[in-house]
Every structure is written in C-alpha cells, then in structure tokens.
C-alpha cells in the first residue's frame, strides 16, 4: 500500500500544480481584461471632466464693441469677447484678435452712460421730430461698462484696447482675467460727475 501510494503521489501532485497554475493564469487574464475594460470606460469620463473644467475657465460675452486698440480690428467693430486661460480673444464675423495673458499690463473697468438713440440715423430722427421733440428722445439713456486693457506687443510696444460691454459684466470679466494671471495694479477711482437734469 505504501509503495502504491508512493507511486501515485508524484503524478497526482503534478496535475494539481498544473491545475493551480492554469487557474492562476486564468484569474490573471480575467483581472487584466477587467482592468482593460474599466480603464477604457473610465478614460472618456476623465477627459470629459477636463473639458468641462476648461469650459468653466473660459467665458464669452456677445455684442461687445471694440472702441479702439486691437490690431486688425476696425475701431467701433462689434463682436464676441472671450476670456481664455491663455488670454483674451475678440472675434468679429471674419477677424479675430488675441491678447496673451502674459502681455497684459493692467485692466481697468468703468461705467458710462450711452444714449438709446444715437449715431447718424438717431441724430437725423431726433432732428426730424418737430417742436424740439428730439431733445426728449435724448433723455433716454442706458448704462454700459467700459473695459480698458493695457498690454505690450512682441517688441515691447505699449498698446491699449477699450471695450464697451453690457452693464455689470466688466468687473466679472476682469476678475476672470486676473484669475488667469493677468497683472492688475491698484487704481484710484475718479468720482462720477452728477448728471444735472436739464
């Protein structure tokens, strides 16, 4: 019996070892496959998260008037002003201009009032109203925000750009530029003159 057992035991132990090895390999393959599947499903969700964080970092304001100061943009052009992590972008129908965050020297905000009826057409309309009615039309105005950005070009030349935005948007935009790393100095606010009622 002993001799029989002794004859059978090595063979049986070898098959068990084989079985254990195979099961380990299978388990390993299963774990690897599961890892692959998990990573494949997780990758898009991670990239989506980074994209959303970028979207949060940039914001656009439509219907902004660039009064003066941008290369290749005609003074008085209207377009979209976007704050990007890389800087500031102004886009009109076909043209766009960028100001890199590192080149921004200072940002100022202010508030102005604009006539509701203005420009050449508005002036003609006001003049056409009889009995001085045009002056009554001139009484209607609205507040706007003014954003002035001082920056330097590649040669170190000083530039300044002025934008007119809807009321209450300039400060928020300035804060975004500052959060992206734009330089801002402390400013002395000029007191607003009181508008006398005619």
């Amino acid at each position, binding site marked *: 019996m002993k001799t029989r057992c002794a004859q059978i035991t090595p063979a049986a132990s070898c098959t068990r070892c084989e079985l254990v090895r195979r099961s380990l390999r299978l388990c390993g393959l299963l774990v690897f496959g599961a890892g692959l599947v998990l990573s494949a499903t997780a990758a898009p969700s991670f990239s989506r998260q980074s994209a959303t964080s970028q979207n949060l970092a940039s914001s656009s304001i439509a219907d902004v008037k660039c009064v003066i100061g941008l290369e290749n943009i005609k003074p008085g052009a209207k377009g979209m002003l976007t704050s990007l992590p890389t800087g500031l972008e102004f886009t009109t129908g076909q043209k766009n201009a960028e100001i890199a965050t590192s080149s921004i020297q200072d940002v100022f905000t202010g508030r102005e*009032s604009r006539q509701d009826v203005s420009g050449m057409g508005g002036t003609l309309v006001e003049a056409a109203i009889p009995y001085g009615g045009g002056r009554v039309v001139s009484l209607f105005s609205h507040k706007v925000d003014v954003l002035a950005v001082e920056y330097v070009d590649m040669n170190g030349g000083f530039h300044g750009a002025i934008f007119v935005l809807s009321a209450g948007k300039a400060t928020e935009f300035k804060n975004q530029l500052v959060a992206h790393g734009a330089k801002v100095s402390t400013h002395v606010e000029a007191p607003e003159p009181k508008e*006398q009622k*005619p």
Partner: protein
Amino acid sequence: MKPHRRAPLLSMFSFAASGAALLMGASLLAQPGPAAKQTQKLTASAIQLERIVPPEDLLIPEDTRVSMYENVILQLIKTKKFQHVYRSGDRNATDAPDLVILHLIPEAFKKGSQKEREVTTVAGTTSIKVKVQFTSRQGKVLLEKDVEGKVRFYGENLRATYDLAKKVSALVNESF
C-alpha cells in the same frame, strides 16, 4: 474832358494806387521769409509716442487716457510724415537714426455728459487740454504747444480724444 474834371479823378487814382501799394508792402512784410519757414520745420524719419502719464493731482479716466494714446498713434500713421511710428517701449526705436519723441502731458480734463450735450446743446462739453512736446532722444525740447480736444454737441465723451488726436496730427503736418 476838361482839366478841372480830370483833377479829382487823378487824385482819387493816386490815392487808390498808394493805398494798394501800402497794403501790398504791409502784407509782404507780415509774411515770414522762406528762410524763417525752413528753420521752423523739423525733420525726422521716425517718431515715438510716449505713454500718457497725468500729473498726480489730475484724475483722468483710464479709458480716456488709453483712447487718447491710440487715437494719436492712428493719426500719426495717417500723416505719412514718418517712416516709422513707434509705440512707447518699442525696442526697435533704439536703432532709429533720427528719432523724435512725442510727449503728451495732460494739463486739464473736464468730463461732460452726452445726455446734457444732446438735450441742452450748450452744456455738457467734455474737454482735454494737453501739452504737446516734441523732444530729441537726448531730451532737448524741439517744439512745445498746448492743444485742446473737445466734444461740444454730438458724440460720446471719448470723441474728445479723437478731436485732440486730429489737432496733434495737424500740428505734426505743419511742423514736419
């Protein structure tokens, strides 16, 4: 014609002729000579506009200051008097052979109101007064003049800076 009728005509003619001669002489004397004109003209192939820094006691809104600077740059380019118009801080200006530096020193600023202007037509004027100074690279003052930009009737407050820039370009046209 009889001699007693000729006499008053002759005296009138001589009076008119002498008056005309006096006027011509006076106008010729009043005109500066060509040599004087030439000495007043400045020559430069390049100009650099320095940043506009108001004195400490004068508050000028930043948008007005920036608008003034940019409008003057645009108008200087439009004059076509210079091969190069350099901005403040431009490194390329250091190599320019005969460079004139333009300083705009604000002296007074009065902020008006567009609404007041359009309603009353007599009040609400926005005005900026600056000292325009052309200097050499070494700091020697070549020309100095006070210029005032205004918006009286129609237009936004920033239009005063455009008016000022037009006057600066007119000064450049007559001085260079």
